[in-house]
């Protein structure tokens, strides 16, 4: 059954779902099997792997490193590189608002219901992921190892050494990078692939996703004592956290 829908901007499309089947039994059986597999996997995991519980809360003993749950370790990683208001409030707030705004920026219906929408979608996704990962890893390494005199390291300390106020290194420079990377990505994708709005949005979402994944991995597996960068096998048990 095809039907014609007319939308703003005069975009005329046909929805053609093709052959249709009854939900009972075709879909409900798949759902049941999926639910049971997950229940079984979770049960096995719960039998063999214990949920962590460490010593009773103690305000006198600060664990080192003190890490948030894994899904906030990306933000905690940002916290090492910029002002806490930026890393803890403004960046996550802006990310949520921009995510919610996606369908009001990319308003066309073409490309619905197809993975990556167009033949260019997947190459753009791969390129954007690599582009973002290289930038993020490069900047993390730069901020960790850039010599800033007298044993200090990092972009912000170096700028302060040259007499800039702390706000330049903690707020201005991170804002410049966080705008420049997605902007440059959009420009490159537009020039190289002659990308339309949907394809540019794919590049930008991939920028968000790749940043989240890379920062989370760095924060989880590459930050040890005093939140210093190290290899995963060099990270020992944290101080002040006795597993029960």
């Amino acid at each position: 059954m095809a039907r014609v829908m007319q939308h703003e901007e005069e975009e005329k499309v046909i929805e053609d779902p093709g052959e249709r089947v009854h939900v009972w039994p075709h879909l409900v059986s798949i759902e049941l099997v999926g639910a049971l597999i997950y229940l079984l996997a979770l049960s096995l995991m719960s039998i063999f792997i214990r949920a962590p519980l460490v010593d009773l809360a103690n305000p006198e003993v600060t664990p080192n490193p003190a890490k948030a749950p894994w899904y906030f370790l990306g933000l905690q990683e940002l916290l090492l590189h910029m002002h806490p208001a930026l890393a803890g409030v403004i960046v996550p707030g802006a990310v949520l608002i921009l995510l919610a705004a996606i369908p009001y920026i990319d308003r066309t219906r073409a490309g619905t219901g197809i993975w990556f929408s167009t033949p260019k979608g997947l190459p753009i996704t791969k390129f954007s992921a690599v582009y973002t990962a290289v930038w993020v890893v490069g900047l993390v390494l730069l901020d960790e190892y850039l010599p800033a005199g007298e044993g200090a390291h990092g972009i912000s300390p170096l700028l302060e050494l040259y007499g800039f106020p702390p706000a330049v290194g903690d707020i201005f420079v991170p804002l410049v990078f966080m705008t420049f990377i997605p902007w440059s990505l959009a420009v490159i994708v537009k020039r190289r692939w002659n990308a339309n709005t949907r394809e540019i949005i794919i590049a930008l979402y991939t920028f968000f996703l790749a940043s989240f994944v890379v920062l989370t991995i760095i924060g989880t597996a590459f930050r040890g004592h005093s939140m210093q960068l190290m290899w995963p096998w060099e990270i020992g048990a944290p101080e002040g956290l006795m597993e029960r």
Partner: protein
Amino acid sequence: MGLREKLTNNRFFKSIYREGYPDTDRKRVLVIINSLALHLHPVRIPKKALKVSYTWGLGGLSIWMFVILTITGVFLMFYYIPSVKDAWWSIININTNVYFGAFMRNMHRWAAHAMVILVLLHMTRVFYTGSYKPPREFNWVLGVVLLTVTFLLSFTGYLLPWDQLAYWAITVGAEMGGSTPLIGKQINVALLGGYQIGQSTLIRWYTLHVIFLPLTLIVLVSMHFWRVRKDGNISTPVYPAPVEATAGSPADGDGAPEPSDEAAEEASGEAEEQAES
């Protein structure tokens, strides 16, 4: 008489599912229409949507994690004591003295992590398949809010064992919230229920975790499911309309969805049923 016949062809089963086992197309329509839970689904769906590699079932599995979390969570509430003095010891009690206590706590923790991952993956699937596009814009917005609620549920739960991990996670979290421009101090006090981490903090996060946030999630996810149906069910590819197809169509420029053929089908199914009785 086969086993299925025995189970389904009796007064009790038929008092629930009036049509007996759905083995004809008509009964397959009616089983969906007549059941509250199954009515989340349309009667028929595109065959394409059955392909696991299209959706990976991520949305459904997210809500399945929520169901498991509710059941294990209620179990944990029987034994957990939300007081600074007793919270940690009640977890020790759950882990060592309570039948299935450690199992239920482990499952609550692993299902919580699974839910965060599944919700993130579900968002990513919806994004890359372009399923946020009109007319599904607002359901995407609801999804972003649900992602936030999921994070909050997980984080508030992380604090309840009142161990070192919990305590220092609150410390970091409250400091981050306290760095908000202009209203940082107020946010800090609101998060902690005072000026330092203590009993008022714990009871605040506990209440959010077991009542407010789950209720919020249930309301929002109901709207989310409702809109999946109202916005035309699962997304399927759209094609540019050929000129002759649009020429004959009436002016429906307001973009209001036409009544779908499922609705018509359901209406006819109900009419059929009424005619029968």
